């Protein structure tokens, strides 16, 4: 069994875990986003309530939730380890350093965009998950959503976080495939294109909710 610990502690092993969980978390974004579109139904949140009730009570979903939490934990834990090791590998910085000549800012700031998305995630979980599922409240989920997004501070913060998520996904999506060893002259351009599309469409999709409730919802 030693090979497993060797693999998990190797630089490439850790990278592979980060990529794998990253792709898994992308699939979660799709599910989350499609469910949220029920907010746009003109039924005073009826359909959305049924959906959120189902999501919080269904046994299979509760079970998948554990996997999701694990996905986040492994993704964050391994990036933290890698980032610390990477920082250690260059103790003396260059006096003159021009990384913009050889790489993109998005690819170099994955740790920071990730950190800000994490900060958003914690606040987001606190507003909805903790209030409704841990503490418990009489307010419905739909009312909570409307209430939160009525606050311009919260809405703009949400939009800003989605921008960062977009930047994170912009590099992360295609990078995950590269790390998993999938680089091929026929498919890589397609993966890069899909990654670009994903990093625009998904965060923009999420950003429609604060925009809708802030400006268009009566």
């Amino acid at each position: 069994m030693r090979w497993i610990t060797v693999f998990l502690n190797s630089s490439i092993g850790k990278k592979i875990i980060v990529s794998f969980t990253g792709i898994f978390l992308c699939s979660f974004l799709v599910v989350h986003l499609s469910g949220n579109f029920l907010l746009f139904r003109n039924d005073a949140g009826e359909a959305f309530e049924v959906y959120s009730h189902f999501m919080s009570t269904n046994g299979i979903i509760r079970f998948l939730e554990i996997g999701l939490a694990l996905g986040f934990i492994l993704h964050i834990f391994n990036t933290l380890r890698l980032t610390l090791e990477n920082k250690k590998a260059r103790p003396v910085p260059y006096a003159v350093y021009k990384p913009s000549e050889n790489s993109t800012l998005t690819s170099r700031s994955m740790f920071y965009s990730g950190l800000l998305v994490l900060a958003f995630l914690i606040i987001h979980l606190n507003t909805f998950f903790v209030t409704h599922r841990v503490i418990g409240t009489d307010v419905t989920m739909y009312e909570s959503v409307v209430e939160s997004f009525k606050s311009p501070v919260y809405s703009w913060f949400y939009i800003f976080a989605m921008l960062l998520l977009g930047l994170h996904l912009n590099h992360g999506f295609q990078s995950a495939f590269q790390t998993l060893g999938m680089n091929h002259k026929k498919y890589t351009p397609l993966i890069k294109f899909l990654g670009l599309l994903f990093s625009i469409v998904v965060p923009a999709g999420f950003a429609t909710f604060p925009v809708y409730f802030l400006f268009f919802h009566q």
Partner: protein
Amino acid sequence: MKLTLKIWRQKDSKSKGDFSTYELESVSPDMSFLEMLDILNEKLISQNIDPVAFDHDCREGICGSCGVYINGRAHGPKRGITACQLHMRSFKDGDTIWVEPWRAKPFPVLKDLVVDRSPLDRIMQSGGFISARTGSAPDANAVLIDHDTAELAMDAAACIGCGACVAACKNASAMLFVSAKVSHFALLPQGHPEREARVLNMVAQMDKEGFGACTNTGACEAECPKSISITNIARLNREYLKASFK
């Protein structure tokens, strides 16, 4: 050309280094960067100042020893060349040029611009070889290799072990170097007997030396004097994954 040079001076690996400023006049645009340093050193010797130590050997881009960081870029501002292939015409009259050694924990500075790159040698020793039959030479073309694969292997084999990939990477990762070596052997039938052991050992040695891990920024590929592609890093990951789970 008249130039101001800011060059990293460090007595030995234990001393603390700093930048020294030198003015150099009548530099010819046709000189190579190393020739310019030669002129500077002659001037320093005539003034009884210790000349600037820098690595060099072939001076034609094939040995990989001349790596220095020039104005914030590995091997200077041009792509696909080494410092010895860089000409002074890439700079302007009156320019200030910063020259620093490679910066990475596994590459300690020995003196001035010279760093110890033996970690790359130790990675090679851990797996960068093949078993070959001794005795009479084998028949030419006895082992058939299709053209495209041979080209890919030759592209990977072009790596000269200069360490610019490590130097340019924000994580000081050596994965482009290791991936070039692993790919070169994995693509050819001669490399197959040690295929799995090679990648496992080379990656283990790479980690042990304290290099960082790749975050796919692509800086290495852009700064590599031999334009080694990061598709090799994907192949390295693939090889490592396969060998680990086999």
